[in-house]
C-alpha cells in the first residue's frame, strides 16, 4: 500500500524521510524543491515539479536521483499511489 509524499517546504524532509517505505514516492513542489539541492539518499523515487524548479533557478542543479515532473506527472503519481501525504512547514 504505497504512499505519495508531497513536500512543499524543504524543511519538511526531516519529517517525511523516516516514514518512507517500499513503493512510496516523493514529489517536491514549491519551496520543497530546495531539498533536492542536497543529496537525498533514500531508496524511493524522488521527483521535483518542473515549473517550481525552473522558477527558482535550480534546473540542472538537483541531486542526481531527482527527476523532473510535469503537472501531468503529478496527477499520474497521485493516481498510481493509494494515498497522498502532504508535508508542510
Amino acid at each position: 500500500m504505497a504512499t505519495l509524499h508531497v513536500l512543499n517546504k524543504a524543511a519538511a524532509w526531516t519529517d517525511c524521510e523516516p516514514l518512507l517505505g517500499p513503493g512510496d514516492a516523493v514529489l517536491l513542489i514549491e519551496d520543497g524543491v530546495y531539498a533536492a539541492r542536497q543529496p537525498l539518499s533514500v531508496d524511493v523515487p524522488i521527483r521535483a515539479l518542473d515549473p517550481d524548479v525552473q522558477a527558482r533557478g535550480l534546473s540542472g542543479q538537483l541531486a542526481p536521483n531527482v527527476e523532473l515532473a510535469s503537472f501531468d506527472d503529478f496527477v499520474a503519481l497521485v493516481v498510481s499511489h493509494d494515498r497522498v501525504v502532504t508535508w508542510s512547514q
Partner: protein
Amino acid sequence: MGLWGLLYCRRHYASLLAVVVSIAVHGAPYASAAARTALGFVESALRLGHRVHRVFFFHDAVLLAADSVVAPQDEQDMQAGWVRLQQTQGIELALCIANALKRGMLDEEARRRYGKPAATVHAAFTVVGLGQLIEAMMQSDRFVTFAG
C-alpha cells in the same frame, strides 16, 4: 517479466484509468503558492480525463474568492484561472463557511442574514458547510491537500 516489470505495468495502467479526485486548498493566495499549484494540478487532472468532484478552500485559502480582487497585469490572474474552470467545466469551488465568514467572505445569503453592507464572494464560488469536505472525501478515489 520480472517483479519490477509487473510493478511498472501496475503503475502504468493505473495512470490510464480515470478516477474521481477532490482536493483541499489550505494556503492563502499570495502568502503561499497553494492555489496556484492546485490550479495546475486540477487542469492536468481534467485534461487527463479524470473527474474532479470538488475543490474545497479551507483556512486562509477562502480569500481566493474575494469578489473585488484586481490582479497585477504582469502576473497570472489566479482567481481568473479558477473561475474559468468553474464556468467551462462546472468544477465546484467550495468555501468552508466557518472559515469564510470570519474572514469577511460572504455570499448574498450571509450578507442578508448578518446585515452586512456587501456580499464579497465571487459568484463562481459557493459557500458550504464543513460536511461538504467530508462528503468530498467519501465520494473520491483520491484526495490531495495543498498546504500553505
